[in-house]
């Protein structure tokens, strides 16, 4: 490709950061260092470009987190080092909301004003920021979509140039004015026990959460860690796939697709290079289950990925985690190091399993949780979903057969391998097997992640969370997150299984259960949801790019002064978005609004 750079140069600091992020010394950049030999021969061209492009996001992300913004000089330097055309790099940099291409103070506060937080103190917090009453030094602030902390509202995520990013939650968030944020370092865990069900005997997915030291592999090993990997190696690849098939495990990321079909397709592929991706982007408003697993039981995620990589014959796995999860990222990186050190991970692991894992941090884009957008994001392209077919199992990451599963989905593999697929299938119902995590937030007494066997009813879960706070009663529940639908109390007796949900015309999505009380302004909630989709659509396909805007406009009119036919218009838009959009975002963007209208919530 033609590569033409502007003259802007990086600072010494930026240069150092890029070298660290990419591992490519300056001397191998496109045209910077001239040596006797590269004045005579030079290898460039397509191949090296393909090889380096996937480093674009890590490079941008590292500059952003170290310097606080991506200057023209830094961008050009990245382009030179990676042989990426500047216009393309610009297109990628401007895709992510956590990357700033304008000068930025060292601290940026992203304050959640999404569905739960906005009803639990966030709007007030934002007012105080807006008025200048709260004003952390050297900072700016911006509203943010759900930060995956809905059980401890209100929440803020703080980017801090050159220091660890951090998350502040609950009352701390407002108290932070004038304090050094270091006092609330990401290692200082929030005080209440991480899960309300802590210590209960039925826990499987959550059994180690709060019980093991997430920073210590010894603690994990002592709690039975890595027995599953050992068992898997003993069984051999084919058996592992067979057990997963017998288990009936279905995806927990939202689409509920049987895991074994993906695994088997990739395991049987003639193509030798294959990939595994663990989808840890968890950005569906109201969802925070994967965070709890990753923060408090990171080794089980690593072990589960290793088993999966082994079973499908992949040598490399990527864990794509949203940028707003600094604590989980930190603990997972540590876990990877520890596992490698113990010979449990990596090319020449003592286990004989040749598999390694790389963490990729997202940079603020809900759409990058969609599996093919995620792959494009890893490849250094804009996070735009791909048209399917071909499916990732045939042509996924870097065009190779790829299994992508959600964090929770993968964590189930540990028990499947140790206990057998049949035993796993005994849990839950025939079509919804195993344990399931639900994220309860909003109008409940004890918000948090709850683990139940498939089959528990909606009402039982709300009761687990202590029911609604005193004096409030249930008006509606948002099931499945922003991409899900509202249901009325008449469905409290519905078992939360894939089949029962589908029969009721709703979806469990990522396991969000968000009760709303009688005082809820649903117009406000729906507007936030509409804004969310408009902000988060990648914008490539017309039905979704424009449809999300037209929905937002129609809703604004409905709340103020409807035009005749506005409700029908919403239905028309919804139909076209479901039918003609490329990906699940467009397909689901109008569901919550439609259901609220149908149920008379607005």
């Amino acid at each position, binding site marked *: *490709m*033609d*590569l033409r750079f502007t003259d802007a140069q990086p600072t010494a600091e930026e240069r150092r950061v890029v070298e660290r992020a990419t591992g490519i010394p300056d001397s191998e950049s496109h*045209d910077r260092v*001239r040596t006797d*030999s590269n*004045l*005579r*021969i*030079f*290898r*460039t*061209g*397509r*191949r090296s470009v393909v090889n380096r492009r996937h480093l674009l996001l890590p490079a941008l992300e590292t500059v952003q987190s170290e310097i606080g913004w991506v200057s023209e000089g830094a961008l050009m330097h990245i382009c030179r080092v990676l042989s990426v055309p500047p216009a393309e790099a610009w297109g990628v940099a401007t895709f992510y909301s956590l990357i700033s291409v304008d000068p930025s103070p060292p601290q940026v506060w992203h304050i959640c004003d999404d569905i739960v937080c906005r009803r639990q103190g966030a709007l007030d917090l934002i007012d105080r920021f807006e008025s200048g009453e709260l004003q952390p030094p050297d900072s700016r602030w911006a509203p943010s979509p759900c930060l995956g902390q809905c059980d401890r509202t209100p929440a803020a995520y703080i980017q801090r140039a050159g220091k660890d990013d951090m998350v502040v939650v609950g009352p701390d968030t407002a108290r932070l004015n004038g304090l050094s944020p270091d006092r609330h370092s990401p290692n200082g865990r929030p005080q209440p026990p991480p899960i309300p069900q802590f210590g209960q005997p039925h826990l499987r997915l959550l059994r180690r959460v709060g019980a093991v030291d997430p920073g210590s592999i010894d603690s994990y090993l002592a709690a039975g860690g890595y027995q599953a990997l050992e068992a898997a190696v003993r069984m051999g690849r084919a058996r592992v796939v067979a057990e997963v098939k017998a288990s009936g495990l279905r995806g927990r990321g939202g689409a509920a697709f049987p895991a074994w079909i993906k695994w088997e397709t990739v395991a049987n592929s003639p193509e030798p290079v294959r990939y595994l991706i663990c989808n840890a982007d968890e950005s569906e408003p109201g969802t925070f289950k994967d965070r709890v697993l990753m923060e408090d039981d990171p080794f089980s995620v690593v072990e589960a990925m290793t088993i999966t990589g082994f079973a499908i014959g992949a040598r490399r796995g990527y864990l794509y985690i949203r940028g707003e999860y600094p604590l989980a990222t930190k603990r997972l990186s540590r876990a990877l190091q520890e596992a490698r050190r113990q010979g449990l991970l990596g090319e020449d692991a003592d286990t004989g399993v040749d598999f390694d894992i790389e963490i990729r941090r997202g940079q603020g884009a809900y759409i990058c949780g969609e599996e093919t957008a995620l792959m494009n994001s890893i490849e250094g392209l804009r996070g735009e979903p791909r048209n399917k077919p071909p499916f990732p199992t045939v042509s996924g990451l870097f065009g190779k057969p790829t299994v992508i599963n959600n964090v929770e989905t993968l964590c189930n593999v540990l028990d499947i391998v140790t206990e057998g697929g049949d035993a796993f299938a005994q849990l839950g119902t025939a079509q919804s097997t195993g344990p399931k995590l639900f994220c309860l937030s909003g109008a409940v007494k004890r918000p948090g992640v709850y683990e139940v066997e498939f089959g528990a009813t909606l009402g039982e879960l709300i009761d687990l969370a202590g029911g609604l706070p005193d004096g409030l009663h249930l008006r509606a529940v948002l099931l499945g997150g922003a991409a899900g639908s509202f249901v009325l109390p008449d469905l409290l007796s519905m078992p939360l299984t894939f089949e029962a949900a589908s029969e009721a015309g709703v979806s469990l999505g990522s396991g969000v259960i968000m009760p709303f009380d009688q005082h809820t302004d649903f117009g406000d909630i729906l507007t936030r949801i509409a804004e969310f989709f408009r902000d988060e659509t990648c914008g490539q396909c017309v039905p979704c790019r424009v449809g999300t805007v037209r929905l937002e406009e129609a809703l604004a009119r409905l709340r103020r002064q409807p035009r005749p036919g506005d409700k029908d218009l919403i239905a028309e838009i919804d139909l076209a978005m479901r039918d003609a959009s490329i990906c699940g975002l467009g397909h689901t963007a109008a569901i919550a609004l439609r259901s609220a209208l149908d149920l008379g919530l607005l």
Partner: protein
Amino acid sequence: MDDAEVVILWGSNARAAHPIFFHRVIRAVRRGAQLFCVDPRRSESAEWADLWLGIDVGSDIALSNAMAREILSEGLENRRFIERSTLNFDEYARSVEKWTLERGERVTGVPAHAIRTLAHTYARADRAQLCWTLGITEHHNATDNVLALINLALLCGHVGRYGSGLVPLRGQNNVQGGGDMGAIPNKLPGFQDVENDELRAKFEKVWGASIPPRKGRHLTLMFEAMEEGHLRGLYVIGENPADSEADVQRARHLMEGLDFMVVQDIFLTRTAQMADVVLPAAADWCEAEGTVTSSERRVQRVRPALRPPGEARTDSSIISHLAAALGHGWGQPTAEEVWNELRSLSPMHGGMSYRRLEENGGLQWPCLDEDDPGELFLHSRLWANPPVGPLAPFHVVEWAPPVDSLTADYPIRLTTGRHLDSYNTGVQSGSTASPLRFGGTLDISPEDSAEWEIAEGEEVRVTSRRGSITVPARVDHSLRPGLVFMSVHFPEQADINKLTIEAWDPKSGTAEFKATAVRVEKAPALVG
């Protein structure tokens, strides 16, 4: 091209000079082809290459011979093809024997391992294309350079097959067509030998005039003839030798000494300004009817879109009127009538009626009759068993260093080339306001810029054994120390041909534009 496995651009910056051809290269690369670039500069094209080999100016034959030796010593040549379809192999093989990789490295400056890589990759490929342009042909030994490349292709059987071949890229839209039409000293239209009595008789019968049975002079010989005083009058059609000749000072001087000069051109070029009579011509591609032939031998129609300005007329109208004035009543034949006469005389154009050219969007010669689809691969006959027609001979070519040698006084190698948006001497493209153009400059490497303490934009004086000019400097990362570059487009600002040498290739008559020895100094400060 699209399906080639290996593409070599040799002395060709096609990215800039032939952008649309380069689109095809890109397509091949996207499908997995490996691209190699042989060029002293790390040009725009080289930026696309898997491997760029930055050879010394004028060492192409050395590189080719060293590759050939490597191919032979590793047994990678295509024996069956050589034995069945070529001549003179043994002599050629002997001649390259001394070209070890080490010697290749010494002469070309390119590391032996890179030469080896190129040789092996080219020889092992199933389908390989070898493309070149003026980087090869604007040398005193231009013909030898081309023969050296042909040798390589014959050695590996990379000719006349799907995906394999030799691709000379022409610098102008109708250079090929000019040759087709007999505008070369020793040929009649359709490459028919002027010294062949039978062929000449065929033309004489139709033309009703006798044709001198001797070959004519090419441009460089014409200037020699002017110098010797044999040639006293000149009729120049669409050429601008007063700007484009190597050693323009000599050329201008000689043309000034002529008794009579007529220039027929669409511009009042520097040559036209020196003429006794100027015949304003129409622009052939948009003000006249006719045909042109592209590098890939594709004959296509051109059509008038504009009325020519003022008194300008099409070339054919001028020539017919001139003929009438000289007492030959040709009338005013249409372009198609002229073309049909040509088709009757030139067998390789026989099948190319205007109707078929129209329907097919052009045809590639040879196209013998109206049923002939035209020839996609020129030398496919060599693959027939047994081969059809004459076998392809290897030519022994010996490397000789550039005539203008580097010495302590002239230690720097100056080479020339073109920029994407400009064209030859710049008279055509110069009137379009291109946002890209940065004018005539002397491009120097960053190292030389530092060493000579010459900054971007600073005026420098460039001196060769023939003359001296002053131009602003421009720092260019595509150059290495000791190599400087000037584009040929800006005679007004940087009259590069004052510097270049008159040495020319005795076989083709092309001059040595590519290798001049110079020294570079800061220009003396302007007084006042």
